[in-house]
């Protein structure tokens, strides 16, 4: 693990699937209709509360990013703080990054004929602001964390339905949902 590795912690137990994170990202960067850097998925794999659990996923700023490995123009670089950034000017629209990322983080824009992805709101971080998605979450389910120091007893590297973490070692941690209790009134 490097000295610093910024990433996300998604507390699935708190997430209500409102997609505020997805919309905040879209608004912040004025993304086109078909491009979403962050996406909220219904979590149907082994859910604690069927139809009430969600996964919110953007770029995972992997330790070994596949996007950087396959990009023929070297548009992707990993910064010292672990953020994987893309030089949008370099992109030639070959789409290889969108196919190579196991999490589908890089998205292709048919309008601009280029790919793009979440850069963890690096400009907001420079202003000591949280990423737009983190700031927008009404439940506090999404947090920016430094994995070099992050320590939570409930956090795990992966959950069922999330692609194999061994491919790229993604910088995301999850707190899985806890099954709700059922209370019944006595007859």
């Amino acid at each position: 693990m490097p000295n610093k590795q910024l990433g996300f912690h998604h507390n699935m137990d708190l997430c209500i699937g409102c997609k505020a994170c997805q919309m905040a990202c879209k608004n912040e960067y004025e993304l086109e209709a078909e491009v979403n850097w962050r996406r909220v998925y219904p979590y149907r794999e082994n859910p604690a509360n069927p139809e009430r659990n969600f996964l919110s996923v953007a770029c995972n700023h992997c330790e070994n990013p596949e996007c950087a490995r396959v990009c023929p123009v070297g548009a992707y670089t990993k910064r010292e703080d672990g953020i994987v950034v893309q030089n949008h000017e370099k992109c030639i629209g070959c789409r290889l990054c969108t196919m190579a990322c196991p999490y589908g983080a890089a998205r292709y824009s048919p309008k601009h004929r280029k790919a793009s992805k979440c850069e963890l709101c690096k400009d907001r971080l420079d202003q000591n602001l949280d990423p737009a998605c983190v700031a927008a979450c009404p439940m506090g389910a999404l947090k920016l964390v430094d994995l070099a120091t992050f320590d939570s007893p409930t956090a795990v590297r992966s959950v069922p339905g999330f692609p194999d973490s061994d491919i790229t070692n993604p910088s995301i941690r999850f707190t899985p949902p806890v099954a709700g209790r059922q209370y019944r009134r006595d007859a």
Partner: protein
Amino acid sequence: MEWLSLTLFTVLSEAAIGLVLVWWLLGFSGAAVTKVTAYTRLGRTILLSSGLLTGLSMLISLEHLGWPFSSPRVLMGLGHSWLSWEVVLTGIFAVGALALWWLGRSGNISRMISGLLVLVGLGAAFTSGMVWSMPSVPANAGGFPVLLFLATTLAVGAVLLLALFAFTADGKALAPEMAGALSLLALGATLLAGALALGFAGAAAHGSPEARHQATAMTSSGLHMARLLAGLLLPAALLGYLARQPKRSALSALPAVLLVAGEIAGRFLFFSTMTFTAVGG
């Protein structure tokens, strides 16, 4: 038709590489030594055709790669990207084939330099396969695309050369001694391509959920069956028949037409059914 330009780029460039490869391999036969003029003149025809075909395939690839003025930037990824190597080696092959055609005006084509050109071409086909051997496509992760692409290179190259034996004067001059052996080589390569196509689908059908999905998408497509029957079995049967025929006829071109069409269909299917890992399956 998102994958069409990529399909045409890969199949056409592999056809061009295969043509030079098989012509070069036939240079080891006795007929190439005894009929050196016809062999060299046919070589020039092949080098010119291959250079132009590869150039055409690269032009087609600009539709999805750099459109077109940003495409030279692919040179920046040579340190880490298979795609950069694919483009560079394919480009060197195209220029090399044309240069060798030009140098061959004297009636002599260096075996060593044409051998190097073959190596560059095979390198291009290899890197092309490696581009698609990515962990995010579990069915492809084992390196199967490399074998598929190399098999296409050999099979299509052999049947195209067989067609040239029927339609060019130099080919006709070489045909009596070489056509039978070439038909058998083409038959073997076609059967190999078919076996690999079936092996690929079979291995995917026993893999991860994404690989199984890809196998189902592939095998349930009408293109899959059409390719197996009309693009592999029928040309294989024709090649078997041609191997026994001493005379060359226009029929020699039919396996080439069928196999190239079949490989285009198969490659389109390969790309369009790729199933990627995804959050939530």
